[in-house]
């Protein structure tokens, strides 16, 4: 589905896309490709979903918003209802099932970090289950790069 050149492109563009008038030309030169070929390949990777986003990534905390990782221990008989209730919250950005007694892990994304507590309490009231909050105390690195 993706070839070796695509992989090199994914790796190179995770590292950064230059702020130049002709950024694709600069990256293409580094990769030994033609500008037009690079543009076409990145567009195709985006179209086919291999690339989920291409552009500036905002740092939510620096524009006033906040995130919080949360977890719940959902008993099997409450699972379906809890998934529906949690996913219905606008503030829930990601929600993953994980193998652990704490089996539901979700991220709250809010416009004002003061809202996090209230959203968590609302989810507790709706689901009847405790929500544990795991706010980030320190970030050691945040980079989405994965080797392609």
């Amino acid at each position, binding site marked *: 589905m993706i070839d070796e050149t695509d992989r090199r492109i994914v790796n190179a563009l995770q590292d950064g896309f230059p702020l130049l008038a002709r950024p694709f030309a600069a990256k293409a030169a580094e990769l030994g490709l033609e500008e037009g070929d690079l543009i*076409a390949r990145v567009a195709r*990777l985006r179209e086919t979903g291999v690339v989920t986003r291409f552009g500036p990534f905002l740092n939510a*905390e620096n*524009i006033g918003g906040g995130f919080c990782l949360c977890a719940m221990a959902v008993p099997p008989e409450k699972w379906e209802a809890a998934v529906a209730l*949690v996913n219905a919250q606008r503030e829930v*950005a990601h929600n993953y099932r*994980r193998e652990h007694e704490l089996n539901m892990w979700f*991220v709250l994304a809010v416009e004002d970090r003061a809202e996090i507590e209230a959203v968590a309490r609302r989810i507790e009231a709706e689901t009847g289950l405790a929500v544990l909050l795991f706010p980030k105390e320190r970030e050691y*690195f945040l980079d989405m790069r*994965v080797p392609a």
Partner: protein
Amino acid sequence: MSGRARSLDALDRAILEATQAGLPFVAAPYADVAARVGAPESEVLARLEAMLARGVIRRIGLAPNHYKLGLVCNGMSVWNVDDACVDALGQEIGALDFVTHCYRRPRRLPAWPYNLFAMVHGGTREEVLEKKARIADLLGSACRASDILFSTEILKKTGLRLARRAGAEASCSD
């Protein structure tokens, strides 16, 4: 809103808004953005550079879909690390090329004794467990307990919507 958020002016916001769906796939993408926000290309480049320097923009580039790259296995490794050395060790773990996120978070005793979270991706569980073993080696005796929580289902995944006031949609892909 934070001071930095207030420091975004109308042009900054317009640029963020114009680029949140992604940069256009054309030879001069910033010129295209400039035309959309009605500012010179050089000004758009300067604003983006300044927002990168201030940390409003984390980076400019692409985010791949881990699953489509064959990294179908995702494990949240969690560690109970001595508070005295968690920051120094966290830096080392965060720098490992196979760790995509590394955070210190509060313990929730007694249920949850872990204070260091490191996300590890791989093609198979064995591969993820091998990577976890490398983290364990690095932590050594500073680590009192650990676990790994494999994800078995993505229940929801959307762009992170926030900062309506900024008119922007921040994207964070993980």
